[in-house]
């Protein structure tokens, strides 16, 4: 998948949260890279700084040491041309689906009409056709999260950061969302950094799974997942899939 160019590079990144008595180290020393159009997942025990890593990558949180580079540029301010999906949908309650999807366009002061067609296309892509005028309060959790994915994609960013986007969904909805995400990713090749707690989800989705150690985290091991694209759930029943999952689980337990 990757063509050799790195979109994200972490070079000895450290993050320590200040605290009155003792500073809390979240990320000890992290170095890895994510290639262009690669789907990379970050797995690790709770509290190992996965969300911190995404915030640092987006440029909305400073590092304590080391450098993050996105497209070769050291990250010192919020990174442009980037989409972010959070653990919760974080939709604006008083805006309907369409207006939520178009929110980034407004903030960037671009013309809404230039993006209307694209917004409709995205809404169709995630199966929310007919719900364009509904308010978030009228949608299920899964539908809301799909709206937030559309919002992250509306400006067609080359880089997508996803922080456990399906963590709050039930297992069936989650599987649907995984398939949908792969469909979107294959349709408009992007670089994705995906944080998750689920080993099978990471293996199913990714080209590369980065396993982190407990806090303060380092890269414990990186697994290259060799399944061909496009994938469907049949890969989950192969012997290799189980082997990947076992190896990753063993690495996390270590």
């Amino acid at each position, binding site marked *: 998948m990757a063509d050799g160019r790195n979109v994200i590079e972490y070079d000895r990144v450290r993050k320590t949260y200040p605290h009155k008595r003792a500073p809390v180290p979240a990320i000890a020393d992290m170095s890895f890279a994510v290639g262009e159009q690669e789907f990379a997942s970050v797995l690790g025990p709770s509290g190992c700084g996965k969300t911190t890593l995404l*915030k640092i990558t*987006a440029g*909305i949180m400073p590092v304590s040491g080391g450098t993050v580079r996105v497209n070769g540029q050291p990250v010192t301010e*919020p990174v*442009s041309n*980037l989409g*972010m999906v*959070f*653990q*919760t949908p*974080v939709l*604006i*309650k*008083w805006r309907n689906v369409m207006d939520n999807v178009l*929110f*980034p366009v*407004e*903030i*960037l002061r671009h013309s809404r009409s230039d993006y209307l067609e694209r917004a409709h296309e995205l809404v169709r892509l995630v199966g929310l056709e007919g719900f364009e005028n509904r*308010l978030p*309060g*009228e949608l299920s959790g899964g539908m809301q999260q799909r709206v937030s994915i559309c919002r992250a994609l509306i400006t067609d960013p080359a880089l997508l950061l996803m922080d456990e986007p399906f963590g709050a969904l039930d297992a069936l909805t989650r599987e649907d969302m995984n398939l949908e995400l792969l469909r979107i990713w294959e349709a408009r090749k992007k670089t994705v950094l995906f944080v998750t707690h689920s080993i099978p989800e990471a293996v199913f989705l990714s080209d590369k799974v980065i396993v982190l150690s407990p806090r303060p985290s380092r890269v414990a091991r990186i697994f290259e997942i060799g399944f061909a694209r496009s994938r469907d759930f049949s890969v989950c029943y192969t012997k290799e899939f189980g082997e990947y999952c076992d190896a990753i689980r063993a690495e996390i337990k270590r």
Partner: protein
Amino acid sequence: MEIKDLEEVKIETIQGLPTRGLKLREIAVPTATLVLMFLAWEAAVRAFQISPVILPPPSAALLLIWKNPGLLLTHTYVTTQEILLGFLLAIVVGLAFSVVMIHSKILSEALYPLLVLSQMVPKVAVAPLLLLWLGYGMLPKVVIAFTIAFFPIVINGVSGLTSIDPEMLDLLKVLKASRSQILVKIRIKNSLPYLFDGLKIAITLAVIGAIVAEFIGGETGLGYLIIASNATINTAMMFAALILLSALGMLLFALIMVVERFSIPWHFRQ
């Protein structure tokens, strides 16, 4: 911290109130309760032959209103004006304060103790001073109604403007939204449900403020009417004024609820 604490207390007292679409039952039940209460009052006064100086029957008070509509409505009109002017002033100044306080930490720290202080000083104690400064006209009544109504608006305004999901703030950072964009597109609308709760408290306080001011120095208004009737032991007139005052307060409260339903339908649809 302090703002949060106050906020929680307020939400608990307000939550029991019906805020969804008004149903016939929601109007019928309170009306029936009220009518029953009046009937019981009437019956008790007659059955126990209570002196009308102590407790006149409600029919006597209602009859007074019926027979002197001009007099009573004039007083009601004056009080309504004082309440509304004080309330509107409280909204304007309260919102301005809220916006300033969330944008400047120093100003917030400087103003917050003053705000609390302004609330701690009993208005009854300050009212004579205000009358001394501002005369006996409408102005001191409006000012007192304002000073008392303004507090819940600021407190709830600040809570509403700042109670934004941390992930929403992260999203805004990712989008590089400017402060003014955040204020206009997110904070203001986000604060409305909180603000309406504050307005409901503020309007009842504005009523109290106006009446207290009229008690202390006034020549018109329902508060003046109560005091004047008290001096002549015209108890029925006192009750007539009280009934009108209660009706006025409830009407204003209901008005805010109606505006709330129309302006933040998304808040009730979750």
